[in-house]
């Protein structure tokens, strides 16, 4: 038997989406099945960014596509290996006078304004013709967002999964405002797929371990398949020590893949979509320049 290749991957800690597949891979030994021995290290977003960008970890399992592009502009040579989740975001409210995004004009919206999810939301709002400059964006760390929604301290709250599921499970009054994600995106990119979160690696590591990339992809694909086929079991694994409520929420979420957006695909197979996302980033002034193709693993060029 061949010796296993060691890979250590830094990922967001639960409850973020980046923490979904790692426990499945670990518990089902999908890594060993493909000749890998993966150690997952959980980090908060700040620590993740610092430790991945500084090269301490060569592989990052919670790579927001836009941040890979941004990192390149800062001098980090990384590449987006494959996608795991497509974009999904929501604006929730409990107020009757807020039925559409346009109703937010002159009101306040709680959001984590530094995140890529919020950046994508800004673009979506622009597609609906909503002028966000008339909305007071109240910046709040993610744990505060749910608090805003629960205690009704803002007209609306912009957030994403899995916070959305646990929020709606706890508060019936929560309504989601239609963002027309798929529609707007199809029109812009000619595809329903919005690559958002995936696995990225430093290019020097990729050059040295081309076969490990394939194996990683295979392991993640197996994990995704397992999740879709065994929602309850997967939810239990993901929830770990969590309470029954948490487990139930995860099950609900997995069964609703339009919100979860699980979509494991090689970067090379969704180059166009990736470039479209980059274009959005540039349009929003989030990215200072269009990232090169080197940030898309296996890109064939236009």
């Amino acid at each position: 038997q061949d010796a296993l290749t060691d890979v250590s991957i830094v990922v967001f800690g639960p409850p973020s989406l980046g923490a979904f597949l790692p426990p499945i891979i670990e518990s089902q030994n999908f890594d060993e099945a493909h000749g890998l021995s993966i150690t997952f290290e959980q980090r908060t977003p700040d620590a993740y960014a610092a430790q991945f960008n500084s090269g301490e970890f060569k592989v990052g399992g919670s790579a927001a596509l836009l941040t890979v592009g941004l990192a390149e502009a800062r001098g980090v040579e990384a590449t987006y290996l494959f996608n795991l989740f497509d974009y999904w975001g929501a604006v929730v409210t409990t107020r009757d006078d807020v039925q559409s995004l346009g109703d937010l004009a002159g009101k306040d919206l709680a959001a984590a304004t530094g995140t890529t999810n919020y950046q994508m939301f800004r673009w979506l709002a622009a597609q609906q013709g909503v002028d966000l400059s008339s909305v007071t964006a109240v910046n709040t760390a993610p744990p505060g967002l749910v608090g805003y929604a629960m205690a009704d301290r803002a007209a609306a709250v912009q957030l994403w999964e899995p916070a959305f599921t646990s929020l709606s499970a706890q508060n019936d009054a929560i309504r989601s405002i239609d963002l027309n994600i798929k529609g707007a995106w199809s029109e812009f990119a000619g595809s329903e797929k919005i690559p958002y979160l995936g696995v990225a690696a430093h290019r020097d590591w990729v050059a040295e371990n081309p076969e490990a990339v394939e194996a990683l992809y295979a392991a993640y694909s197996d994990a995704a398949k397992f999740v879709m086929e065994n929602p309850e079991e997967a939810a239990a694994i993901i929830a770990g020590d969590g309470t029954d409520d948490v487990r139930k929420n995860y099950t609900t979420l997995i069964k609703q893949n339009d919100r979860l957006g699980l979509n494991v695909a090689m970067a090379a197979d969704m180059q166009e979509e990736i470039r479209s996302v980059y274009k959005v980033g540039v349009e929003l002034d989030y990215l200072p320049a269009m990232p090169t193709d080197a940030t898309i693993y296996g890109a064939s060029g236009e």
Partner: protein
Amino acid sequence: MSDIASDRQSYADSVFDTVRWAFWLAAPFVLIAAAWQVASLFFPPFLFPSLIDVFARVWDILTTWSQFSSVLATAMRILGGLAGAFLLGAVLGVAITNSRMADRLLTPTLTFFQGIPALSWVVFAIIWFHGVEFRIIFIMVMTTLPAFTFQVVGALRGMDKDLLEMVMSFRPSRWKFFTAMVLPAVLPEVITAWKVNLGNASRVVVVAELVGSSGGVGYQLLQQQQLFDMAGALAWTLQLVFFVLLFQWILSQFEQFAFRYRSKSERS
């Protein structure tokens, strides 16, 4: 007969004393709990979960080794960070009071450090060091060091010069001078410094644990908050609170012992 009666009397007295002692010990916490329950009448249950839920979670944490070990790890980190910061702070404090040059170099540097938020230290720690525990201790030390140093400097500058010269006149060794004069003279302020920094350290540890431990109260707390599991978040917060209460109690016991020499004025 009367002997027995007085025995009974004193027994009753001591029972009464114990009850009163327990009452006063519990009173503040009962008040906090009561305030919580009152608040829960005005807020929906997912904001103010019932205390029963919270205590069920607390019980769970205390009795599950995998969870309780998180609490212990955090406690050790707080104590380790404080001890490190205190030792270093004491050395720097002595240097600052004794050398004009040290004062001019170190005081602004420490003030500089004071202005750097914990979050920035987290980033620096990640960039500069390897090893999760070392990083955490580094962050803890850097954030509590200026406080300890300034407290030690304040205490040293406030020492009674007459007593100091009296002790000096016996030509003690440095060590003797330190244990006989400096330590007892600055002890009150040092204990205050510990009391104050305990709170800060227990606050910073929550941030410091984000550099990448997959255990510890800070990590668990953040997770519960992101899941918006209020009962869980409170239960983990309470772990920190318990630790701080316990350690403060130890400090106050020590204080009572160490400051028994203090006179009390009969007035006020």
